């Protein structure tokens, strides 16, 4: 059969690569013959050949002595596919189409293997194949593809570089754990691969960030779905640990990515992941020196960085949708009717089951609240730069008013959600951190709440406490605000009923 003939040809290729180096002239001759003699002369037989080669390579892996060389065939296949990518004419079709075809074939063979017989499926050969693509591409692209002799090809490959990674990322998205649980750990290993993750983080003009966020959100969604209170499987715990380690690596190497994408990460982070939340929100720009947050004499208005608006990669305005007009109109001229519209829009029509600390479901739209709060922050930051701090660091400003009114008129849950999201903005020294410290500190001490005052204070303290009670890291902004409240002359925390009446909490605050 043609499949059997493909097996023979591929086996010859594997043998050849064991005898000569991959840039030997024989290799070029062999590939040319593949094309000239009709093995790879059109897309149908290309698909047939690659399918057969992949199936044979996977079979070879499964049959190999596990202590020996198990990847010989897979390594040879990846070498062939990359060679074809470089050497082809690309007259009738594009590099993109070629790559899409290759990945599609892999995905189809993989799907069959994964679904058909659970007992024999093994993720490793597929992982190896994809890992090899990344390694081969990394070698090829060194110093802007300088090793590619032909100038025209070199230019084409250079402009294709970002697309290569984004196509790879798109297919990785198809392989995600929800779709193929038997590939989960290989998938996470690919997402964090040394020749994928740091590249995606550093592509010019942040060209890899959108797709990288897609993949990280895939991972967080999976964790979110299977982090059930009291019932977390070992496997899911291991997924969590790997995820945490990956985020720590990103925070170390490219903290700017976490800084600019914190909004979407918070939207998808499982609600009980306080430490991971802190890791993401603690990211500090690479060269920034940060003053001691526990210094009670800290004057934020004198810190230069506290004037700067943080960059936001994804504009939250797109998520406000129907409420954008009422919110923006309110920020221009506050009114009760606008407030009604906004608040009504924040409640869900169905309960959202969420395993939180002290609650199991939500009736408010957490994402919409986050979008509005961040939007207010962005606008306040802009105004601070445009006019003056007095316009913005002012309880009479519409920015403050909106947040105050949402809390004042909302249910306890809405109060909690708004305050929680505001506290998320207490990050590294920047204008948003500074502004929310101002707002939250004022909200903590103001008498304007009237009979709701204690409730609001309790929610603010609870929300801060759940961020500081966990192991390190803690964000700079949360530490600053917490220190200010502990040292406040205006309110003695130890006199508050909700602290006094619970021995464990009282003890904690006395220590703090």
């Amino acid at each position, binding site marked *: 059969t043609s499949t059997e003939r493909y097996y023979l040809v591929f086996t010859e290729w594997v043998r050849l690569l064991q005898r000569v180096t991959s840039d030997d002239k024989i290799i070029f001759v062999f590939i040319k013959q593949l094309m000239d003699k009709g093995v790879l002369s059109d897309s149908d037989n290309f698909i047939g050949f690659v399918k057969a080669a992949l199936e044979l390579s996977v079979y070879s892996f499964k049959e190999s002595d596990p202590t020996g060389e198990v990847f010989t065939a897979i390594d040879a296949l990846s070498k062939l596919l990359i060679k074809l990518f470089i050497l082809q004419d690309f007259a009738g079709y594009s590099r993109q189409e070629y790559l899409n075809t290759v990945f599609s074939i892999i995905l189809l063979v993989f799907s069959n293997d994964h679904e058909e017989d659970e007992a024999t499926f093994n993720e490793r050969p597929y992982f190896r194949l994809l890992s090899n693509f990344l390694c081969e591409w990394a070698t090829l692209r060194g110093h802007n593809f300088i090793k590619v002799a032909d100038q025209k090809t070199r230019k084409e490959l250079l402009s294709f570089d970002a697309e290569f990674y984004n196509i790879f990322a798109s297919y990785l998205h198809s392989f995600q754990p929800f779709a193929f649980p038997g590939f989960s750990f290989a998938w*996470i290993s690919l997402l*964090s*691969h040394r020749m994928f*993750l*740091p590249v995606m*983080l550093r592509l010019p003009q942040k060209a890899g960030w959108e797709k990288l966020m897609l993949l990280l959100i895939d991972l967080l969604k999976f964790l979110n779905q299977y982090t059930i209170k009291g019932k977390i499987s070992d496997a899911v715990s*291991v997924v969590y640990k790997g995820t945490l380690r990956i985020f720590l690596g990103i925070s170390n190497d490219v903290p700017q990515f976490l800084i600019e994408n914190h909004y979407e990460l918070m939207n998808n982070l499982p609600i009980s992941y*306080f430490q*991971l939340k802190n890791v993401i929100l603690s990211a500090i720009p690479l060269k920034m020196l940060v003053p001691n947050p526990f210094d009670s004499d800290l004057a934020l208005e004198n810190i230069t960085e506290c004037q700067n608006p943080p960059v936001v990669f994804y504009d939250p305005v797109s998520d406000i949708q129907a409420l954008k007009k009422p919110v923006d109109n309110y920020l221009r001229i506050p009114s009760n009717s606008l407030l009604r519209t906004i608040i009504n829009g924040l409640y869900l029509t169905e309960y959202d089951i969420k395993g939180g600390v002290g609650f199991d479901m939500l009736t408010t739209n957490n994402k919409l609240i986050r979008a509005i709060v961040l939007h207010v922050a962005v606008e306040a930051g802009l105004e601070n730069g445009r006019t003056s701090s007095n316009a913005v660091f002012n309880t009479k400003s519409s920015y403050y008013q909106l947040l105050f009114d949402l809390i004042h008129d909302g249910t306890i849950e809405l109060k909690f959600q708004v305050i929680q999201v505001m506290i998320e903005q207490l990050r590294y020294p920047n204008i948003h951190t500074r502004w929310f410290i101002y707002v939250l500190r004022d909200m903590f001490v103001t008498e304007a709440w009237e009979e709701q005052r204690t409730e609001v204070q309790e929610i603010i303290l609870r929300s801060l406490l759940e961020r500081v009670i966990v192991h*390190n890291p803690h964000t700079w902004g949360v530490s600053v605000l917490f220190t200010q409240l502990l040292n406040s002359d205006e309110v003695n925390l130890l006199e508050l009923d909700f602290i006094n009446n619970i021995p464990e909490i009282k003890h904690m605050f006395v220590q703090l």
Partner: protein
Amino acid sequence: LGADLSSMIHSLGIPRDNTRHRVLDTFQSPWAETSRSEVEPTFFIPD
């Protein structure tokens, strides 16, 4: 409450002192248990 991350941070190769060092370019695996050996990073050899 999370966990003490210092051993995880150390296993990543993130320095304890104030020096900065990139770790993702030599990242072996998301888990310390599967990071038994170092991996070859990207490198370039001039012709």
